């Protein structure tokens, strides 16, 4: 039996989530929640026969039982999720948070899903985090990463108002996840928006400082293996070139590892350049699918 999902936020991320949930065999799109009755996202969902509301989270919470909702995807903003999280918990909803609010522990499906799957609120870090934390985690498996730094470059058109209003939260949450999930000693994240036309495909660069004398082949192998794993749920995730491993170029004589990544989107809501949408929505859906078997559907409990 599929678990029933609500998506809160009818912008770029929410609309992309709806498209992916509709394709999933273990998830049903039960409700899309917005605040603007004229939003493109709500109109599309309506046309696809999905229940919608423009009355925000209050409307969702009033219908949890009626619609039999089990799980909520948060695609609003960090401050909105901080306010909503306790209400979801009270309503017994599992929450997957795609804002950088970081209320619950971070989940990066290719790295730590098995360790934290029983938590009621999981945070998807950021799009940049989903693209880069796996690489840092892969390097950490074979070497000590003293410092990891990432640069995510998005097409301006792929960065909606929520992303734009949360630039600081993006860099801080991503940096933190490089340490907590990636295993780096210290982390730094940089985000750049590029307005070029036609829009550029999402790019991510990972730099890591590892001790001199590391096994370069082991690092390369770990990175390639991880890229394969991420491709399992984000098909457009790829290395642009072979990782560079350069002795002496890091701080204090350490070795610098440079990894250049490109994320081409599946084109579900925005076109293929918006790999930033895909990588976080695909990670969220992959997480929900893995959680599904352990969630008892409300529809099986509630007599309507």
């Amino acid at each position: 039996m599929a678990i029933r999902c609500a998506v809160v936020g009818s912008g770029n991320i929410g609309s992309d989530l709806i498209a992916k949930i509709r394709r999933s065999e273990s998830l049903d799109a039960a409700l899309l929640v917005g605040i603007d009755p004229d939003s493109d996202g709500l109109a599309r969902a309506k046309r696809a026969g999905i229940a919608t509301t423009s009355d925000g989270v209050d409307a969702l919470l009033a219908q949890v039982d009626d619609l039999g909702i089990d799980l909520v995807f948060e695609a609003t903003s960090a401050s909105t999720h901080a306010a909503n999280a306790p209400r979801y918990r009270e309503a017994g909803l599992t929450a997957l948070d795609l804002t950088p609010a970081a209320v619950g522990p971070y989940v990066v499906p290719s790295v730590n899903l098995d360790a934290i799957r029983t938590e009621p609120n999981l945070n998807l870090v950021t799009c940049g985090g989903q693209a880069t934390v796996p690489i840092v985690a892969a390097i950490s498996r074979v070497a000590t990463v003293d410092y990891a730094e990432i640069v995510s470059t998005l097409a301006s058109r792929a960065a909606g108002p929520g992303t734009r209003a949360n630039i600081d939260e993006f860099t801080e949450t991503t940096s933190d996840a490089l340490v907590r999930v990636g295993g780096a000693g210290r982390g730094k994240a940089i985000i750049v928006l590029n307005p070029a036309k036609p829009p550029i495909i999402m790019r991510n660069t990972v730099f890591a400082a590892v001790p001199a004398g590391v096994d370069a082949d082991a690092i390369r192998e770990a990175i390639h293996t991880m890229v394969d794993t991420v491709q399992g749920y984000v098909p457009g995730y790829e290395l642009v070139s072979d990782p560079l491993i350069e002795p002496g170029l890091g701080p204090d004589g350490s070795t610098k590892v440079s990894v250049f990544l490109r994320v081409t989107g599946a084109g579900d809501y925005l076109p293929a350049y918006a790999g930033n949408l895909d990588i976080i929505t695909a990670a969220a859906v992959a997480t929900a699918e893995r959680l599904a078997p352990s969630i008892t559907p409300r529809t099986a409990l509630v007599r309507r």
Partner: protein
Amino acid sequence: MTSASPTPDLESASEREPAPGFDSPVVGGADTPPLAGRRISVCDTTLRDGSHSVAHRFTTSDVERISHGLDTAGVEVIEVTHGDGLGGSSFTYGFALHSDLDLITVARRQIHNAKLAALLLPGIGTITDLRHGVDAGIDVVRIATHCTEADIAIQHLGEAKRLGLETVGFLMMSHMLSPEDLGLQASIMADAGADTVYVVDSAGAMLPHQVVARVDAVSRAVGDGVRVGMHAHNNLGIGVANALAAAEAGAQILDGSCRGLGAGAGNAATEVLSAALDRAGAATGISTLELLDLAENTVAAIGAGKLPVLDRGSVLLGYAGVYSSFLLHTRRAAERYHVSEAEVLLELGRRRVVGGQEDMIIDVALDLAR
């Protein structure tokens, strides 16, 4: 610069009272100076943009001597930060010898009259960095975004006002946007609380008429309560000329750096700008002779071997419209991966990379090396 057409109601140059700090003997031409009666503020960014020239290796003693000299000479605003702003120290932009906060703290002790500024690029630095900057004594923060992305500065400008700072919105790579669209972006920053909005020629790609059109459009868009500034680079050899053109078009604050120390071919040299502003009749509050001494005796020595020059790479930045601080990173990458510096710069221009995308330099170099 050609002088503006004489305006009958202004006093002639010979009758004019010397402006405050106007202590250079102006000789020659009796034509009316174009900036007569205008107060023009100067922001010196030797210790921020100039940080690019020295690969972010300023020592505390460098900062002490330069900030002391600038303050004594009467410069209104002194900017001290990593070249890429608060939090810029990184693999991507170059690790700094000293933290921003250490350098700001050192400068604070030397500065008694000027305002101390820091740069912040949303996406690189954060409001947490800004708060630390305030604790270390900054008076002004300049929030820089690519010229089309002003809305990512709203958070930071608002918080800066709440922290009691003077605020500047800094529209980088302004050559990439039409004057009208630049005006729209400027009004986003003004609405978010910017006291001043800058036209920033990060690539040193603009010609004087383009500067004039943009300063004019931004001035109209932000209205009377907001100052307009200009940050020039010298990649086409017209840094000072562009700054003067901006002033004539209504800009009230101009950036410079001593000996032009800064990314690419550097900035408009502050001491040259000060001399030119004197000749143009503007009141700057700066002692040009003291500034010339500082540039000659202190900054030239600190920057020895690293002073910006109008070489092939620098000119190509302006020619291809590439962010000036890409130059030294490109030079290193070209050498390391055995590719042509010129080809890398031209390809970066074709890809329309923007400030902050220094990681793409290695990417382009590796592509060309294949």
